[in-house]
């Protein structure tokens, strides 16, 4: 169910580790090794501790990850795509992190809003949520959404009214599914940030999401960010998956490829 997209060779591991910090006995060997992995190798040491630059780079990447978790999505991106915003049941960021159950349920107010503003029983319902990385939305939304809309058109699929969920967890799909009764639902959500990328987005897709749906009934395209699966490619891939789900009337492990 967890699809790992193959990494692209040219920008395989970004630029972070391209700079060698040590002079090894075999300089060519070090260059060669650095090309094979995004891991922070050949960073050097002073005594038993890392070199200053290596430590500061690490701390910078961690800072970006922390900001991604604690940050807020830039509303101009939401406005650009006409996404109105609704909330899940969490009160504070701390509660959001401690209580995943709160992020799986929309507030009563949110339910009222989407009932009033969204098309009922759409073929495809698109939902965007910050999840664990607001910067994943800021980074990828403007590329993913147009590509997704294009691929819906190519595949002759119609979408309902898209919206944004603040503080969503993956399973908020089920609650939204109960309320709007879509045939399929696509949730574009920020992933738990890593140090290699704090801006990674996942697309979770489910045929007839309703309360009680098993995790294994969802498909996911993960690792959507500039250094991973390109947003444009992801958008196109989602359309193909949706088509298959609607045809086979299922999703997740049961979906035949």
């Amino acid at each position: 169910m967890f699809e790992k997209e193959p990494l692209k060779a040219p920008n395989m591991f970004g630029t972070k580790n391209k700079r060698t910090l040590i002079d090894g006995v075999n300089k060519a060997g070090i260059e060669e090794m650095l090309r094979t992995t995004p891991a922070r190798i050949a960073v050097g040491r002073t005594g038993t501790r890392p070199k200053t630059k290596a430590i500061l780079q690490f701390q910078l990447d961690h800072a970006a990850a922390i900001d991604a978790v604690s940050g807020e999505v830039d509303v101009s991106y939401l406005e650009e795509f006409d996404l109105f915003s609704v909330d899940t049941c969490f009160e504070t960021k701390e509660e959001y992190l401690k209580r995943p159950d709160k992020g799986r349920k929309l507030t009563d107010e949110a339910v009222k809003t989407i009932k009033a503003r969204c098309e009922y029983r759409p073929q495809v319902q698109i939902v965007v949520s910050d999840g664990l990385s607001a910067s994943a939305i800021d980074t990828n939304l403007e590329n993913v959404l147009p590509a997704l809309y294009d691929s819906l058109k190519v595949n002759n699929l119609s979408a309902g009214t898209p919206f944004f969920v603040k503080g969503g967890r993956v399973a908020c799909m089920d609650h939204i599914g109960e309320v709007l009764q879509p045939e399929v639902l696509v949730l574009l959500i920020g992933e738990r940030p890593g140090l290699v990328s704090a801006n990674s987005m996942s697309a979770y897709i489910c045929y007839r999401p309703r309360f009680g749906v098993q995790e294994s009934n969802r498909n996911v395209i993960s690792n959507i960010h500039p250094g991973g699966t390109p947003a444009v490619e992801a958008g196109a891939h989602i359309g193909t998956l949706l088509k298959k789900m609607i045809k086979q009337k299922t999703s997740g492990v049961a979906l035949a490829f």
Partner: protein
Amino acid sequence: MIKKIRLLNDTYLFKDLKEIMAKANEEKSGDQLAGIAACDAKERLAAKHVLADLTLADIRNHPLIPPENDEVSRLIEEQVDERVYEFISNWTVAELREFLLSEMARPPDIERLRLGLTSEMVAAVTKIMTNMDLIQAASKISVETTCNHTIGQKGCLAGRAQPNHPSDHIMGIRASLYEALAYGVGDAVIGINPVIDTAESVKSILTMTKEVIDSWAIPTQNCVLAHVTTQMRAIKDGAPADLIFQSLGGTELANQSFGIDIKLLDEADELIHTEGTAQGPNRWYFETGQGSELSSDAHHLVDQVTLESRCYGLAKRYKPFIVNTVVGFIGPEYLYDSKQVIRAGLEDHFMGKLQGLPMGVDVCYTNHMKADQNDMENLAILLGSAGVNFLIGVPMADDCMLNYQSTSFHDIASVRDILGLRPTPAFEAWLEKNGLMENGKLTKYAGDPSFFHQKTTLQA
């Protein structure tokens, strides 16, 4: 069993042992998520007071998860040595704490004592111990095990080389492994978490690591941390595995969610002893971590410290070579911040050691937890003082496959240096022979992964 206490003008009456055990825990977000934690510090202390005065017999006679419903409970019950238990059954939990911390408790005494303890008793005493209690008591207990080589000697700190790669790229894994070896890390195990859980992929990683071990005559052992059934298929297909790995849960239901039970573990145990490539008697690598039972809804409303202790009760059946609690991987809904992670790391290490297990700790955190690398450095030093058998080594602590941060190769070298600890003797001799270490200190050649790449390139 006395379940009532009057404290600071309030009376507390607890329903049963399960409630006392849960509320006596130090604050953990996982117990709060389960809805079983103490509501405030006073109630927590009331539960600790009540627990301290319970006898070990009280705990044994009131099973938290009845043996008739759970095979882990049955196993823990069967493992009790009745003669030793008889001798200590009327001790209170407070007396057990004081015995463990006293000068009377020498290593042979603790070795005998543990035969009469259940995992629940071990969890109970942990709840009334402070962090330094946990360090002091654990530091007395060394647990030595042997796969190809022996680890766990007093004064040694081993490291697992964890050269993971986001797409299992064999050369990429090898590059990080070279970096580990260049820092003197890899004496516990060369262990890779694979992305692709297939026998073929597992076999190719085992084969590469075995080649590196053989061509450099490294005194260590290899392992790929796929699902046990995948490893079994790979081993039957001729993959060279010194160790076999599995994650454990503290209840039968939790293990079901991992796709395992005792019967399957028994089969794997037999396979690794007949088909494995290691020489020594200890051939398992287990991982655990507080919160996994709740995350699979298999916790029976029992607190996460007790469930973790039960994992160790299960693990000891297989006389493992290494056991590792992955203490902060699970996320903030179980361990919210660095304070909770540090506490859990010390608890798990102590509980495992008291049950005779060769404990290592993956000192780690995810980016949505309230913790940073400084907190991990603190915990690594605390565990080094507590006598932890091994720590995890990841390039600059950043695992680019699992997307979390652990401890680095530098950190393991630093903890050794600061606390006067050494790699395992065979590994240190190997480092000396290759000119990477001298009198327990890294030499000028250390820290350069191309040291190993060079020879491989020349050979190729």
